[in-house]
């Protein structure tokens, strides 16, 4: 008899867990936010008027240890302008079947055009779909942005765009705008 009650007690512990809060990750239903600087899918940012920040310099492709990035630059003209300045990327591809998310490309980017988001759900059923094109990588148009090609609205030359660089984070201000993760410079000032 005592043995029987002991068994019941044991199962009781198991049964009571059906009404308790779960301690495991409930991934597809609830997505736990990641660290703000988690290396996820890339974004190609835009200036506040919608022009692309990418200048087609290919430094990201040179920095990439896995040769995952392919860039083809082309010249801007006054009639057809995609980015402020001389050049823009006419083709931009990142092969996610090769990318190791090391972040060397975003360190190499001179215009902060290429940044990383926290998006990680990237599985696909063909290798072709894993090559992301420029259309897929470009940031969405926010209010006040216009789909390029169009003229430079923020100034007469590209200098006006770059001088306002630090206060002009583009459409995907990520981790650097999070107050908890701002890094103070040498004078103890925190970049705004």
């Amino acid at each position, binding site marked *: 008899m005592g043995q029987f009650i002991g068994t019941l007690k044991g199962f009781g512990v198991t049964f009571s867990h059906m009404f308790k809060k779960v301690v*495991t990750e409930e991934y597809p239903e609830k*997505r736990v936010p990641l660290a703000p600087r988690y290396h996820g899918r890339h974004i190609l940012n835009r200036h506040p008027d919608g022009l692309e920040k990418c200048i087609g310099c290919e430094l990201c492709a040179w920095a990439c240890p*896995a040769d995952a990035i392919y860039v083809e630059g082309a010249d801007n003209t006054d009639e057809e302008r995609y980015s402020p300045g001389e050049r823009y990327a006419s083709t931009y591809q990142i092969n996610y079947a*090769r990318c190791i998310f*090391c972040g060397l490309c975003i360190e190499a980017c001179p215009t902060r055009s290429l940044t990383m988001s926290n998006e990680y759900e990237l*599985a696909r*059923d063909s290798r072709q779909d894993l090559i992301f094109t420029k*259309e897929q990588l470009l*940031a*969405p148009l926010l209010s006040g942005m216009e789909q390029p090609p169009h003229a430079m609205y923020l100034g007469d030359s590209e200098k006006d765009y770059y001088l306002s660089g630090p206060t002009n984070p583009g459409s995907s201000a990520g981790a650097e705008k999070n107050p908890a993760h701002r890094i103070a410079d040498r004078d103890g000032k925190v970049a705004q």
Partner: protein
Amino acid sequence: MGIEEKLPNGILLTTVEKLVNWTRKSSFWPATFGLACCAIEMMATGAARYDLARFGMEVFRASPRQADLMIVAGRVSQKMAPVLRQIYDQMPDPKWVLSMGVCASSGGMFNNYAIVQGVDHIVPVDMYLPGCPPRPEMLIDAILRLHDKIMDEPLGDKRRKVLEAREPAVVPAGSMPSSFRHNKELRAAWEKAAAQGREEQLRIEKWMETQARRNS
């Protein structure tokens, strides 16, 4: 092949097909095939915190004869390739292959003579999962996308032809991220965006929203 080839293409068959696919995806046993660092993440996924048992997949079978899914986790060297093929051949039908991590998917950063440039040179792959290594959520996402694909699989060649004759879906099976598919609002938003071809932009918009919430 069997009786399903002779049956008419009615409600009975589609219901049976659904039932068969449901049983296949609900007890989807993976074979242990860890080759490198991705295997550590694969073990983490199977362990207590991420709890793969929720999807009926907690038993990683050491014998390929009891497994349905081969998760190729890690880089495949030329020397390992015949072993990998043999393990695949030993698995009973129906079987699926998930190539986990960039090395298995395409060779990744190891573009050299020692590494097979993509495991699809050796076995047919059903789902490619990028990442170096992918975090456990990414593996769960890939597995759930594979579940979605299995639920869409035809029963027999006759049914396959019928399904192929249909016009392609706006959101093909296995193309929607799991966190979107398991949330009604996000799912509707994704379907709408996919019709316009801007689902990747939607994803970034959603991420920017969470980022803005966090910063405020």
